[in-house]
């Protein structure tokens, strides 16, 4: 279950990057340059938003694991 959740979460940035690439770089060659720029800027804003949010979530997960590990280690040390 945990692995599935992590897999799904990891799939989000991959899907988003693919979407940004498709929208920004796979437009037809006769597209207006201003339109291309608009698509790229929008894609960048969406991708950065997701990168920040998922990056923060990943940092929280790492922090919690480190915290639990340290607590378990300090409990294991005989006093």
């Amino acid at each position, binding site marked *: *279950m945990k692995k599935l*959740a992590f897999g*799904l979460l990891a799939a*989000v940035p991959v899907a988003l990057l693919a979407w940004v690439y498709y929208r920004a770089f796979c437009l037809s060659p006769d597209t207006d340059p201003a*339109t291309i*720029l*608009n*698509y790229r*800027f*929008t894609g*960048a*804003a*969406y991708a*950065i*938003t997701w990168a*920040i*949010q998922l990056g*923060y*979530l990943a940092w*929280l997960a790492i*922090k*919690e694991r480190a*915290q*639990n590990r*340290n*607590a378990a280690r*300090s409990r294991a040390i005989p*006093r």
Partner: protein
Amino acid sequence: MKKLVTGVCAAIAVALLGWAFYQAIYVAPEEQTMHEVQRIFYYHVPSAMVAFLFFAISLAGSVAFLAFRRNHAEWAQAADAWALAGAEVGVVFCTVVLITGPIWGRRAWGIWWTWDARLTTTLVLWLIYVSYLLLRRFAAGPQVQTLAAVLGIFGALDVPIVYMSNRWWRTQHPAPVFGGGPDSGIKDPAMLAAFWWNVVAWLAWGLLILAIRYHVERQHQRYAAQEAQAALDDTSNA
């Protein structure tokens, strides 16, 4: 049971975000003057709204900490955890606002940044809460939580200034979308729906990570209390 509830909440939040994304990109019509780049609005404005809400939670937590710290130690610790979680998640959303705004501005105005009232007060708000987090991270001693609570209260005073800045002063930033007079508001129903879906989705996501951050902080407080108790026991045994 707790993990199941978290999993269900996470699934709901992610499903809402997916639906809101679809609404923003594929359902909402293209705006007539800014065209495609206007779709940044659906991430920029909800992020700002959620950031303001979380700074308000941080304010409430800070006030509660100061109120309870002498008589109800356990309540004060919980309030402090809410204050920290609110400030940290608020900074994450405020960072999104400060990055997506200039990206949009570069295409709409031709510049990345200008020192107008809305942008400057938002940057000041972000700096205040980053300093709050730095204080929590690097300062030591028994007064850190109290100092942080006071800083959190002062930081929250900037939120209404940010909100009112483009009403009080003439700014490069556009006029308020809501509550800005008779001409304000989103006229197109599809655009309005996409906007509100994104508000709901980002709020759900924000509440989820706020709850996770609160849980992590409470755990940290418990471990710190256990370690302090163990150190005290060691001293008394020696």
